[in-house]
């Protein structure tokens, strides 16, 4: 009998992934064994610790990987500086995102349903709430998603990439469905995300199959080398390769949220619980873009050798998509009236700008992409964190006076996401407004914020790739983008708070108006409003906009994001150095 030879595995290289994913598994056990009281705290601590730990390992690995990229477990995991940088960015962003998720705000309620499986407005749900249930499973789910993202960017084995894709997607599908308020929207978002996601991954995997058929392997690097040397079994049928690469690219572009594969983005971002939206928008985009970059460049290596024609076709694809994405993102974004939706379209637009940078296929793109992902992610998480704090509150004019306090008066409801409702925010909460304005300016790419350096990098990438006209298009698109960020800014800072309630119950066609299940005449404070997708106000009551105090984590996240945005804008060279170290990804 032959004796078992243990494989050579560089555990340190895998450490970040193992820590995060392992913590996820532990989190599941925590659900099982830790008593309900302590569960939430445990989960939060565990999650943050895991992400921090993962980042620590990345930091440790950094010099070694920069010196010499490694392939672990037979190449399933390929750690290039670029991949590691992506992992680091994802870890950081996820950390910030979790902070926002963990914040219960002054209302004592976090953004998640006590029992996501319960039908909105049923007595069972009330029961669940009153017994103080909490779905702490979200934390392990977040960890799995984060782990999947980290893996997504750091492999060149398409199957591993596919699995990573699912590992990061499936938890997100679930998380989308767990909003405490506006449950129907939340569930709808989940459904749409899931169906389209599944469709996209089917396309992806079929593309993988075709590539496999062409090359006999699913390792991009091997394919590249093989093609350079020639002598592949189906050398003639490069059509297989083209179709395969196209499908794989589409699968990735879907995650990136690029037109015409963007349709899910606005709906899902709007419906999902806002902290999750922030997490998704920042981290998923980072992972997907990184993966896209790796795939495209590795493919391009081989293709260049065999058939420059295909190479040009690939570039044209990216260019077309980039232009479409910028156009749709900015133009449609400029007519939105809902903050979350506006941010969703802005994320589409940013996908466009990122693609502009990538389309150059030039050497320095990786560094500029990494920087872009970081600065964009920071601004996004910060912005959505702010959104979680701007809420509607029901007030009864006569309450507290002679007729005594009216029942469930002053209850804080869901987020006030109508742009009109944000009027006068500058007076209500100057710091918060200042921070949000900063994030908007960063997204708009105003100098002295991170966004400017990022955008500069992207356009530089395109120009250095010879696509200066694409850079000009990008410039024009960002003018439009500026216009709609500005609209929000004007409302927040300059417009006085409306005397009449921001939301009048009359707008029945609005997406947030609930169709069927609305529990009425409920008992305890807050309960009645908990699951309604739209506040129902009796004639006596009206809804006004208030800013709830964060219990700390979210505020911390916002502060960190704001400071980082400024620092990356004024003294970017520190980070740019790292980004440049990360700019060789082919071992």
């Amino acid at each position, binding site marked *: 009998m032959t004796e078992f030879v243990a494989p050579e595995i560089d555990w340190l290289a895998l450490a970040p992934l193992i820590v995060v994913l392992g913590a996820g598994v532990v989190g599941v056990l925590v659900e099982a064994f830790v008593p309900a009281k302590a569960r939430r705290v445990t989960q939060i601590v565990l999650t943050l610790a895991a992400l921090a730990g993962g980042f620590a390992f990345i930091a440790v690995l950094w010099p070694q990987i920069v010196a010499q990229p490694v392939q672990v477990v037979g190449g399933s995991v390929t750690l290039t500086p670029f991949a590691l940088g992506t992992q680091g960015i994802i870890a950081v962003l996820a950390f910030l995102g979790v902070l926002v998720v963990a914040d219960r705000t002054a209302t004592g309620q976090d953004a998640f349903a006590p029992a*996501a*499986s319960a*039908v*909105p407005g049923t007595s069972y749900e009330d029961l669940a709430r009153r017994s103080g249930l909490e779905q702490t499973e979200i934390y392990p789910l977040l960890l799995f998603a984060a782990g999947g993202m980290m893996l997504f960017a750091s492999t060149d084995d398409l*199957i591993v990439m*596919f*699995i990573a894709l*699912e590992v990061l997607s*499936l938890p997100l*599908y*679930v998380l989308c*469905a767990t909003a405490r308020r506006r*449950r*129907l*929207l939340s*569930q*709808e*978002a*989940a*459904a*749409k995300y*899931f*169906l389209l996601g*599944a*469709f996209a*991954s*089917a*396309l992806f*995997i*079929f593309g*993988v*199959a*075709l590539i*496999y*058929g062409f090359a*006999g*392997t*699913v390792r991009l690097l091997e394919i590249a080398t093989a093609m350079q040397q020639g002598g592949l*079994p189906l050398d003639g049928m490069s059509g297989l390769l083209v179709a395969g690469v196209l499908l794989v690219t589409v699968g990735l572009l879907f995650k990136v949220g690029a037109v015409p594969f963007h349709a899910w983005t*606005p*709906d899902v971002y*709007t*419906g999902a619980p806002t902290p999750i939206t922030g997490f998704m928008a920042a981290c998923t985009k980072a992972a997907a873009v990184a993966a896209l970059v790796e795939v495209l460049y590795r493919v391009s290596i081989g293709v260049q050798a065999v058939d420059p024609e295909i190479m040009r076709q690939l570039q044209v694809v990216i260019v077309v998509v980039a232009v479409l994405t910028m156009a749709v993102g900015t133009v449609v974004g400029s007519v*939105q009236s809902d903050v979350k*939706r506006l941010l969703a379209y802005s994320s589409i637009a940013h996908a466009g700008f990122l693609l502009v940078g990538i389309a150059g296929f030039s050497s320095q793109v990786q560094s500029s992409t990494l920087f872009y992902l970081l600065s964009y992610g920071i601004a996004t998480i910060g912005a959505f964190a702010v959104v979680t704090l701007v809420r509607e509150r029901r007030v009864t004019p006569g309450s507290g006076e002679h007729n005594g306090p009216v029942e469930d008066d002053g209850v804080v409801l869901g987020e006030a996401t109508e742009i009109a409702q944000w009027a006068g925010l500058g007076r209500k909460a100057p710091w918060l407004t200042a921070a949000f304005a900063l994030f908007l300016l960063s997204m708009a790419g105003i100098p002295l914020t991170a966004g400017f350096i990022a955008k500069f990098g992207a356009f530089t990438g395109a120009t250095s790739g010879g696509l200066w006209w694409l850079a000009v298009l990008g410039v024009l698109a960002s003018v439009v983008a500026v216009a709609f960020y500005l609209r929000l800014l004007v409302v927040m800072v300059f417009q006085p708070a409306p005397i009449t309630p921001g939301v009048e119950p009359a707008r029945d066609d609005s*997406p*947030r108006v609930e*169709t*069927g*299940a609305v529990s009425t005449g409920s008992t305890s404070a807050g309960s009645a409003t908990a699951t309604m*997708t739209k506040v129902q106000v009796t004639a006596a009551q009206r809804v006004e906009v208030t800013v709830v105090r964060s219990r700390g984590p979210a505020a911390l996240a916002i502060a960190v994001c704001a400071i980082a945005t400024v620092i990356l804008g004024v003294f970017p060279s520190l980070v740019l150095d790292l980004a440049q170290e990360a700019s060789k990804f082919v071992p």
Partner: protein
Amino acid sequence: MDITNYVVLAAALFAIGATTVLLRRNAIVVFMGVELMLNATNLAFVTFARLHGDLTGQVLAFFVMVVAAAEVVVGLAIIVTIFRTRRSASVDDVNLLKG
């Protein structure tokens, strides 16, 4: 028998699956369409595995199946939840979010 037949068959199945996704209203059926696409992929994998004479393709097929199973779990959960709230499994009924 020529390999292209297999490939064409796989492609056809894939196309049928895609069409199902595009045309059918019932969420379950739509999801079955996705499953069909995945299985078409499996066929392709296995075919190419035979072509290349290595087992990778067949292993990959298993991976795909596992992933498909996982998707089913999550997907059905979501669909069922929606069905319970709305008493309808038609994907055309979930369009509160638009614009």
